[in-house]
């Protein structure tokens, strides 16, 4: 197997070299390098799969696992590394001819790739802190890359809220280290079993949960996300990367760290509820926006809520459904952001009311958008429908099932509204089609078709990637298709009736200042601490 630190370090070294050498062939060499990484990640995955190793742990520098830096490969992390390399490859292809992709941009992008892979592979608490802290800095620079007025505020808000979250995380690490004397996930779990009272774990866990909830944009700690992901001047590849991939890092860590604590402190009901709230209010906020990039960003919040629900249903099928949805969401959300980038550039506006007739003006971009929309709303045969089907399968009672469908109804409704940009009610003469680089067109189209592919071959893909045979009952799948059609109809009616309602206007202008976010973090911390204390008061 190729060692994990190669995956973490080579992109960073490569990026720095690109910056220093300033070669004329920079973009070609980036593409070649990315292709190499894709193959390398598939090679490692194949090794794991063929040797039937459950996991492979390597220690950096020959230290023991107790004090050294351990990187862990298992099927899930290997799949996420594949996702990272493929997505980065697409993004670099998309940016092949873009003017903003100078050597600084390429360096930041490559460095971020190394860090993201690092977070997927890391197996100890302190590493997570280091990798996250550095990636926060890089992401905030990427957000404000064009240094205009709006993105400065968005980038600053992103930087400070996320740094605060990481201070919370570090405090959790400190308390845990003092209690257990180890930082490795698996070793920490072993040590926890030896504790006389697991109630002492409540304090560090509350710190971790606060940090991770802010990172995963769980209600009420999500206000930084839309600003950061949809800042007007940021290149669309940055938005696609942040929304498609970077937030998945925190979801991944969320279930990794939850699995460490889970035998001792259970939080699944709490987060099932919070996940639903996030999914619901995310969709509501998405529905109230006018800026198409903001609609997509709020829909990311909503989808993160859905995935959090799936991860916390205490059901194996729902868990794998959620993991599969993470992959799917990465594909269709980055497609949507990239095509939205092309659309806003062509029309010169981001206002959903002013963009009409994309279907006639740019048929290929419109086709990619439609494919991605069908994916995200869970239309039958598309990737979203399969992962959502499995998540819904894990719902234990009628209430959870209903809650899930309400959340998905929200997604469908806001994408019906979004799809208005594709059509044109009045027949205008078609403005000349812009000459867009074929690279951009073909990238979004290929990615759009991936979400169809992910739906048609969902069962084969989950067996291939995770070795899990997930059941699919044709009858209940058909039933879900019926629910989809009913929600589609309902969504049309809702979009028709709300139109320009005052309530949506009020919701749209709601915003939280940095001080409010600090207050909410404190409240969230106290709430999760209280919840765990009350739940485990009688142990």
């Amino acid at each position: 197997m190729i060692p994990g630190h190669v995956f973490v370090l080579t992109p960073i070294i490569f990026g720095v070299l690109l910056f220093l050498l300033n070669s004329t062939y920079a973009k070609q060499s980036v593409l070649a390098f990315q292709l190499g990484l894709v193959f390398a990640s598939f090679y490692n995955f194949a090794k794991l799969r063929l040797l039937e190793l459950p996991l492979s742990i390597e220690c950096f520098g020959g230290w023991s696992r107790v004090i050294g830096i351990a990187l862990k490969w298992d099927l899930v992390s290997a799949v996420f590394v594949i996702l990272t390399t493929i997505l980065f490859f697409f993004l670099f292809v998309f940016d092949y001819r873009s003017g903003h992709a100078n050597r600084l941009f390429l360096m930041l992008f490559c460095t971020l790739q190394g860090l993201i892979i690092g977070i997927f592979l890391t197996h100890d608490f302190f590493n997570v802190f280091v990798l996250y802290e550095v990636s926060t800095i890089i992401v905030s620079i990427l957000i404000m890359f064009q240094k205009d007025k709006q993105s400065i505020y968005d980038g600053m808000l992103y930087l400070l809220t996320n740094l605060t979250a990481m201070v919370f995380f570090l405090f959790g690490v400190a308390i845990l280290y003092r209690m257990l004397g180890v930082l490795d996930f698996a070793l920490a779990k072993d040590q926890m079993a030896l504790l006389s009272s697991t109630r002492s774990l409540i304090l560090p866990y509350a710190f971790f949960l606060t940090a991770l909830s802010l990172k995963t944009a769980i209600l009420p700690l999500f206000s930084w996300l839309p600003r950061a992901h949809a800042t007007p001047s940021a290149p669309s590849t940055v938005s696609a990367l942040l929304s498609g991939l970077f937030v998945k890092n925190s979801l991944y860590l969320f279930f990794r760290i939850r699995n460490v604590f889970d035998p001792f402190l259970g939080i699944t009901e709490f987060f099932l509820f919070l996940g639903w709230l996030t999914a619901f209010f995310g969709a509501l906020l998405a529905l109230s926006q006018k800026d198409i990039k903001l609609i997509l960003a709020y829909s990311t919040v909503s989808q993160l809520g859905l995935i959090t629900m799936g991860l916390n249903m205490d059901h194996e099928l729902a868990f794998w459904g959620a993991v599969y949805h993470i992959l799917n969401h990465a594909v269709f959300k980055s497609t949507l952001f990239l095509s939205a980038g092309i659309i806003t550039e062509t029309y010169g506006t981001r206002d959903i009311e002013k963009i009409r007739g994309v279907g006639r003006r740019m048929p290929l971009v419109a086709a990619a958008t439609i494919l991605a929309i069908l994916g995200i709303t869970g239309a039958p045969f598309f990737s979203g429908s399969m992962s959502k089907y499995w998540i819904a399968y894990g719902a234990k009672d009628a209430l959870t099932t209903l809650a899930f469908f309400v959340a998905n109804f929200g997604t469908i409704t806001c994408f019906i509204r979004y799809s208005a940009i594709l059509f044109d009610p009045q027949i205008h003469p078609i403005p000349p089609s812009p000459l867009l680089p074929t690279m951009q067109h073909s990238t979004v189209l290929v990615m759009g078709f991936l979400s169809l592919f992910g739906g048609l071959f969902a069962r084969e893909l989950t067996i291939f990637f995770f070795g899990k045979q997930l059941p699919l009952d044709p009858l209940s799948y058909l039933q879900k298709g019926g629910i989809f059609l009913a929600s589609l109809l309902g969504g049309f009616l809702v979009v028709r009736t709300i139109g320009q309602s005052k309530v949506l206007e009020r919701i749209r202008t709601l915003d939280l200042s940095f001080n409010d976010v600090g207050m909410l973090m404190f409240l969230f911390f106290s709430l999760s601490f209280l919840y765990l204390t009350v739940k485990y008061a009688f142990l």
Partner: protein
Amino acid sequence: MRGRKKAQRSDFTVVDEVSFVIFFIGLYALVVKRNAIKSIIALVIMETAVILYFIAGGFREGMLPPIGDVLPEQMVDPLPQALMITAIVIGIASTAVALVMYIHLRYKYGTDEWKEVMKKRIEEDG
């Protein structure tokens, strides 16, 4: 002399509480201070509290610093110190980035009060 030693020991057992207090002082400042530069200072205060807590965790009475010719049994746990050096370095880097952003924010918006900056940012959206 005895009294002093006793005082010294109690000094170190209260470090935990002190670092918690400092952490929440920082958090308090984060919530109530409306000025962006004070928010950055508050963040640094919180970070310092965590570093103090981490370092103090490695301390045992009568142990020596892990530098030079010290037997492993005699030295304090060196791992927290190694980790905190890393955390301090990253902390400096992130504070530097935050300060650079602060300069830009101040320059572009003409104010550094969170509320006013937010108002102007929403106006930009239109």
